[in-house]
C-alpha cells in the first residue's frame, strides 16, 4: 500500500460517496433511538469535506486529514461533528507531514482516531457508540506484527461484527441513553457510519 496525498483525497471522496449513499439509512437508524439527523448531518459534512480537499493534492497527508476534521467539526454539528472531527484531526496529527502512507500508518491513524473519539465522547466499548465498531477494527490491525490488505479485511469484518453487537446492548451515551432498555434491538447509527467509512477505506486501498 502506498497512499500519497492525491490517493488519500480519492479515498476520502469514496467515504463521502458512501456516506451520501447511506444518508437515508443512517437517518432512519437514528430516528429509532436518537434525533433523526445522523445521515443528514454526516452527508452535509462530507459534502463540505469534498469541496475543501479538492485542491489539496499538493499538501501533506496530515494537513489533509486535519482539514477534514476541522470541516466536519464546523459543519456536522450535534455530537457526531465533534466526535468524527476530533477523530480526523487526531489522525492528521499522528502522521504529521508525511506525503505517503503505508499499512503501518493506517494503524497509526485509526488508533489516534479511536483515542480521540474515546476522549471526546468519554466512551468505552459496550456503550452503543462508534467505539463499538472502531475499537474491534483497531484491535484486529494490532493482532499481527505485519499489516496487509488481508488484515485490513479482517478489521472491517470486526467493525461489522461490532455494529451487530450494538443491536443487543443498552445505549449509555447520547440521547439514546434516555431510552434505556428500549434501545435494545436497534443498531447504533454511529457504529454504522464508522463501519461504512472503514469499508470505503478498504475499497480505496484495494484499488491502489
Amino acid at each position, binding site marked *: 500500500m502506498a497512499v500519497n496525498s492525491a490517493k488519500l483525497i480519492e479515498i476520502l471522496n469514496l467515504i463521502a460517496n458512501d456516506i451520501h449513499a447511506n444518508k437515508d439509512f443512517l437517518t432512519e437508524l437514528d430516528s429509532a433511538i436518537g434525533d433523526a439527523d445522523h445521515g443528514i448531518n454526516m452527508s452535509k459534512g462530507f459534502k463540505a469535506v469534498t469541496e475543501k480537499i479538492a485542491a489539496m493534492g499538493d499538501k501533506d497527508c496530515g494537513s489533509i486529514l486535519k482539514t477534514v476534521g476541522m470541516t466536519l467539526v464546523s459543519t456536522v454539528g450535534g455530537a457526531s*461533528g465533534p466526535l468524527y472531527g476530533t477523530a480526523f484531526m487526531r489522525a492528521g496529527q499522528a502522521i504529521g507531514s508525511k506525503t505517503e502512507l503505508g499499512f503501518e500508518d493506517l494503524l497509526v491513524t485509526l488508533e489516534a482516531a479511536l483515542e480521540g473519539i474515546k476522549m471526546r465522547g468519554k466512551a468505552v466499548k459496550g456503550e452503543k457508540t462508534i467505539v463499538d465498531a472502531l475499537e474491534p477494527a483497531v484491535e484486529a490491525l494490532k493482532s499481527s506484527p505485519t499489516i496487509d490488505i488481508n488484515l485490513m479485511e479482517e478489521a472491517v469484518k470486526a467493525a461489522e461484527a461490532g455494529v451487530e453487537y450494538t443491536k443487543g446492548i443498552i445505549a*449509555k451515551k*447520547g440521547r439514546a441513553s*434516555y431510552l434505556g432498555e428500549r434501545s435494545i434491538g436497534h443498531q447504533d447509527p454511529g457504529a454504522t457510519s464508522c463501519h461504512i467509512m472503514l469499508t470505503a477505506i478498504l475499497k480505496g486501498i484495494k484499488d491502489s
Partner: protein
Amino acid sequence: MKKIINSPEEVVQEMLEGMAAAYPQYVRKLEGFEVMVRADAPVKGKVALVSGGGSGHEPSHAGFVGKGMLDAGVAGAVFTSPTPDQVFEAIKAVDGGAGVLLIIKNYTGDIMNFEMAGEMAEAEGIKVASVVVNDDVAVEDSLYTTGRRGIAGTVFVHKIAGAKAEAGGTLEEVKAVAEKVIANTRSMGMALTPCIVPAAGKPTFTLGEDEMEIGMGIHGEPGTKRTHIMKADELVDHLMEKIVNDLPYESGDEVAVMINGLGATPLMEQFIMNRRVSQILNEKGIKVYRTFVGEFMTSIEMAGASITLLKLDDELKELLDAQADTPAFRQL
C-alpha cells in the same frame, strides 16, 4: 406547517438580524456568525459569560445578553448544538481578560461542542471554565444515562452568575456561584401539543386531543408519562411532588419560583399554575422570595409549561436581586 418564515434554512440567521435591529442598545450580531454579544463587548476586566445551544428556545439564550447576565449567546440550528467554531468566536469576542465561563445545558452534543471551543480558546491563551446545567427531574439521573437535561433553570444560572461577574467576581468565584445555583435548582415540565421544527415541516411527536405528556423535554423528548388531560391544580401537584421531593425543598427554605411557558401557553394559564404552586409551597412552609412568570426557555410553539424552584441563601438572594438589563430580562 404554518409559520411566519421566509425559508427554513434562514430562520436562525434572520431571527438574529431582527433581534439585533430591535435591541441595538443591548446586543450586536457578530458578522458571519450566529452569535449575539453585548453591545459593549468585551467588557474589560469582567469575567465573561457565554451560553447557547440549539435555537427554538427564545428568548434563550441571546435574549439574556446584556448587563448583569450573559456576554454572548450562541445560536445553533433549531434544536441542534452550535458548532465549536461559533462558540470559539463568541469566546474571543467577549473575553475581557478575566476569563470566560461557559454555561452549558446537559446534552451530549452541547457539551462536546462547547468543550472543543473551550480547548481552542485555551490554546489561544484565554482562561475558560464551564458549568453544566441539569435541572430536569423528569429524567432519572444514573450512571447509565447521559444524566438529567438542562431546561429553564438555566436562566437562573445566567442571572446569578451574571450578577456575580458584574460585581467583579473572579472566574473561580463566578463558576462556584453558578455551581451553587445548579445544585439548588430543580425543574420539570409538561406539554399539551407538539412543536414543528421548521426544517422538518411536521410535528416532532403527536399527542391526542385529550392527552398531555408529563416530563416532556424542551426538544419534545419523551417524558415520564402520557396521561389524560388533567385540571391545572392536579397537574401542578404532579410536577411539584417530583420537584419538591427531589432536592428536597423543606419547611423553612426560601425559594425563587419560575413558571416558564413553552411558547403557546398564555400567561393566563401560567398564572393559574403559579396560583397552585404558591399554595403548595405555603402549605409546606417554604417561603417564596421571588416569582418569575413568563417565557424564558420555550420550545418553538409547543403548548405547555415548566416549573422551576431555586433554593436561596443570602448570597443567592443578593445576586438574584441585582440589576440586570437585557432584551428579555429587565430588573432595574
